[in-house]
């Protein structure tokens, strides 16, 4: 009596084949990153070999034509702009999400969510354009030159705000209703419920959203290029114009050749390093992933 016939045609074998196919796809998706890193290394190798890695941190200033390759000021500018933006967009984004989930009337929340989604889709060029024609002149009246770390932070904050708000919104939505009912049954007020129950429960999702937003801020190019002033210097105040690593690549790549070009690829490598550090931090913090 044959009951379970093992057969080449059986669904289990088809499943195994499907599994291999999918694993291959996943491997391919993962290989893209490897390809990018290898390519950056290949392109920046000549200058790394010739002047060494240390000079990119130690050189005073960035004058590739005069063989000075100091990237440190731009690294600091990148970090300052990103973290400033996160500092601003983080609380605002979480507040927007709380507004949608717990404060606004249903119809307003719906509208508000659509608005935030839309904000997420606005191209960085438009943000930059608006910043350049509206925000920079406004600030220039008080604190010339206007184009500065501050404008960069403001524009970046506006750009990453939807990322924070949408991920936080999703995290808040994932908080089981039972928690809310439980808190209500204990007679907790709305504020106390949010502070004591909702936010702690949604913490993981919110943190990963903030980290994702940080990555976007680090990587943003065009908008920052248009509003931050692009002067290579270590920022000492909010009103100093700064140049970020990404803006550096975008400004000069088309005009660069030889060691200058290779040095710009080193900027790219440095950015990759930042992103990898960030991803590793996310991995640690949220025990898994950057995305919800």
């Amino acid at each position, binding site marked *: 009596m044959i009951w379970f016939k093992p057969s080449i045609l059986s669904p289990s074998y088809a499943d195994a084949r499907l599994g291999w196919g999918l694993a291959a796809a996943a491997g391919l998706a993962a290989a893209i990153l490897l390809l990018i890193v290898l390519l950056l290394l290949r392109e920046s190798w000549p200058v790394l070999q010739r002047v060494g890695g240390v000079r990119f941190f130690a050189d005073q*200033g960035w*004058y*590739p*034509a*005069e063989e*000075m390759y100091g990237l440190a000021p731009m690294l600091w500018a990148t970090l300052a702009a990103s973290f400033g933006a996160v500092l601003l967009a983080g609380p605002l984004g979480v507040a927007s999400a709380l507004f949608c989930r717990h404060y606004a009337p249903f119809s307003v929340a719906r509208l508000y969510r659509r608005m935030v989604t839309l904000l997420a889709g606005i191209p960085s060029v438009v943000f930059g354009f608006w910043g*350049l*024609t509206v925000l*920079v*002149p406004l600030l*220039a*009246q008080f604190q*010339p*030159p*206007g*184009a500065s770390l501050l404008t960069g932070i403001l524009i970046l904050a506006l750009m990453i705000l939807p990322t924070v708000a949408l991920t936080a919104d999703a995290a808040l939505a994932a908080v089981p209703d039972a928690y809310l009912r439980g808190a209500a049954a204990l007679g907790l007020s709305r504020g106390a419920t949010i502070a004591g129950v909702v936010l702690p429960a949604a913490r993981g999702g919110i943190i990963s959203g903030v980290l994702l937003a940080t990555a976007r801020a680090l990587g943003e190019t065009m908008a920052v*290029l*248009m509003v931050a*002033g*692009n*002067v*290579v210097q270590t920022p000492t105040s909010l009103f100093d*114009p700064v*140049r970020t690593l990404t803006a550096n690549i*975008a*400004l*000069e790549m*088309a*005009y*660069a*050749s030889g060691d*200058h070009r290779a040095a710009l690829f080193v900027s790219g490598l440095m950015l990759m390093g930042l992103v990898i550090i960030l991803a590793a931090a996310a991995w640690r913090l949220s025990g898994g992933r950057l995305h919800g």
Partner: protein
Amino acid sequence: MKKHIVHHLLRISAAALMLTVTPLSQASDQKLVLTGSSTIAPLAVELGKRFEKLNPGVRVDVQSGGSSRGVNDVRSGLADIGMVSRALKDDEKDLKSFTIALDGVGIILHSGNPVKTLTDQQIIDIYTGKISNWREVGGKDGRITVVNKAGGRSTLELFLHYFKLKDSEIKAHVVIGDNQQGIKMVAGNPGAVGYVSIGAAEFEAGNGTPIRLLSMAGVAASVESVRNGSFPLARPLNLITKTEPVGLAKKFIEFSRSKEVNDLVQAQYFVPFVR
């Protein structure tokens, strides 16, 4: 060996991809690729369009970048013609260059700024940070915002060359990439000074943008003074080729230097080339 197989596979699949998406009709077409200076690119696009109209079956693809890219791409054969918005440097003399238009670089201020002229020395002092208040050059009390161009731009090289400065000596407050960013920056900041393409500045000033061109060494900055050669800070806009141009490239370069495209050159606020 294995690596080679992978390379081949990748290339073959790319080729297959191209075959499936390229209509057969294009096989007979002639294509001209131009890359280089973002200043020339908009003009080259317009030149290309008219050239295509006059020569059915020909396609002119323009890719923007920078002058150095034009030089590199022509050398490597990626482009048939390079666009370079400056005279060729000494180490580029192996290339053939053909001027199609002229452009001047002028100093611009916000139109609310009462300063009428600046001497060359004053400009040098402002750009090197020795003068930091408009009061010192006869203007109102207020900080000077120095707008400089980012490394590699022909305009920057021309500016540095004319004032005999080094990029590292300039103490800039804002660094910009393209012309329009400079104009917007100066228009939005009453204390700013910058240098941009004269044609663009003249156009913007004429359309109500609050900027003003300064005369240099006593010569008014205008398209006219560039045309008659009296303006000191002028540059040629060149098309370059690796070797003496032949065939389609030659035809296009001759077309670009001819009188019949003067209107296109002027529409981009450049000065047409006069033989």
